[in-house]
């Protein structure tokens, strides 16, 4: 999936300006990091791509389609093409790992057979195949995050967004998670990871976008 931001601004109703004049272009199949202090606008940028929020100025093109032209009814279809690992949208604790991962497929109306096959493939990918029947609560923090990733990729999205996916994980686990994203990127998925862990980001040697107070201050080089 190809993403283009053209002088995008987002001003909340409260008057707070979360993003202003943000422009960048992510090629199909590219992987990039998004860094910046907390409050720099990383999450807002992700939300715009998910159409959780709408920009107040500028243009966002996804595969050449201006998001402003999509109606409310088109949002679900759009979201099915994007996998997300968001910090605050965690796993549902009233169902097993398997059913958590199956959710995006159920929502898009896949049949049981297909769901079982794809959920197991996704869990296998993140190394949790043998824990499909567990309740997420019985898993460690790193495992939970991997379940979230499995859920994000089970629908075979063309864009993977991750907001602080290594938030509370130790460096070793963080590196593992990052390697997972890299693997998805290797098979052609466009990946954008928001992280404030600059050391980790630097080691990954990918393009880095840096936000500061809602402005894109660095685009391109490694951090």
């Amino acid at each position, binding site marked *: *999936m190809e993403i283009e931001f053209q002088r995008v601004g987002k001003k909340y109703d409260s008057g707070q300006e979360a993003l202003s004049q943000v422009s960048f272009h992510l090629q*199909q*199949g590219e992987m990039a990091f998004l860094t910046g202090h907390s409050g720099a606008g990383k999450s807002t940028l992700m*939300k715009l791509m*998910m159409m*959780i929020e709408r920009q107040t100025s500028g243009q966002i093109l996804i*595969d050449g*389609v201006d998001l402003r032209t*999509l109606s409310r*009814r*088109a*949002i*679900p*279809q*759009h*979201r*099915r*093409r994007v996998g*997300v690992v*968001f910090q605050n*949208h*965690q796993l*549902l604790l*009233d169902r097993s790992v398997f059913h958590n991962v199956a*959710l*995006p497929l159920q*929502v*898009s*109306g896949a*049949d049981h057979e*297909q769901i079982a*096959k*794809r959920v197991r*493939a*996704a869990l*296998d*990918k993140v190394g949790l195949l043998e824990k499909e029947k567990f309740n997420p609560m019985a898993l460690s923090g790193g495992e939970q995050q991997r379940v979230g990733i499995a*859920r994000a*990729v*089970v*629908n*075979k*999205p*063309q864009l993977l967004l991750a907001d602080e996916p290594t938030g509370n994980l130790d460096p070793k686990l963080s590196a593992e998670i990052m390697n997972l994203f890299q693997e*998805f990127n290797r*098979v*052609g*998925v466009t990946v954008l990871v928001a992280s404030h862990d600059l050391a980790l980001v630097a080691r990954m040697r990918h393009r880095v976008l840096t936000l500061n107070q809602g402005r894109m201050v660095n685009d391109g080089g490694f951090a």
Partner: protein
Amino acid sequence: MAQKPSQRGATRASVKASKHHWPTRSRFNASLYFLQHKTTLKESFMRLLSYPLASVMTVMVIAIALSLPGGLYVVLKNVQTVTDQWERQSVITLYLFPNLEDTEALALSHQISAQPDVASVEYISKEEGLRYFERSSGYEQTLSSLSENPLPIVLRVIPREAVDVTTLSSLQALRDELATKPEVEIAELDAQWLQRLANILSFGQRFSYALSVLLVIAVLLIVGNTIRVAVESRRDEVLVMKLVGATDAYIRRPFLYMGFWFGILGGVFASLCILVLSWWVSAPAERLIDLYQSDFQLQTFNADEIVLCLTISAFVGVFGAWIAVNRHIANIELQ
């Protein structure tokens, strides 16, 4: 998206393949659609079972609210059948002015019997009236002491229609018409009691309609409130579903089915209540009615009425859920 599943997540080929039809709509698959509905129907029922006490209470409140108008309906239906069976020969009695000659009275009698809505006219002369009166009243002594026969000529007009609740108004019209004839002093239709009963019945009917409307609104509110709580308790799930691309219709569906279950179970219990209650009162009621009339059978909810009751309750359940869900799902937005 319409692409074959590959064993492991996205591949370059699959990503390319799906790139060209954007924005896409998944193809409509009817059998899958019905399967989904069946699954949701089952799951929403299981969800009710997972909160048995709360569910039973809601269902019972709905059942009670529905059985009140249902019970009233059964009562009215029985009163109606009883009164319908009380159909009998109606008589309009015309008391003619006492100074009228026999010939004039006879002419009037012929004239009336020629009317199409009159079956026959019985002519009761002053003497016949006196004899009949003496026989039935026991005042022979008193009457024979009178120098003159005080009784008027009476015409007993038998209309073609028997008197019952439905024909009452046309019979009254006939009586009014006969009363206007100059020879007639008083015209009486022997159906005052029926008139009163008809009034009571129509009052009862209106009362039960109003009560039904109120209680149906109550059921709407009960279901709406229960669904609101259910939506609120599944807030996280709704958020995650929105995040992974669930349509509003998809999110709404389990709650609508929940409303459906509440409605239909409420309807089932309401019907049961009515059946049990009418069975319970049937023996004394039949004995009571037997005093006035033979072969009375208490009517209860029949199959059609049970089906109607379930249809209405299921519809009200879904509708109540619809209102609540639309209000509350819109409030749950990703942030």
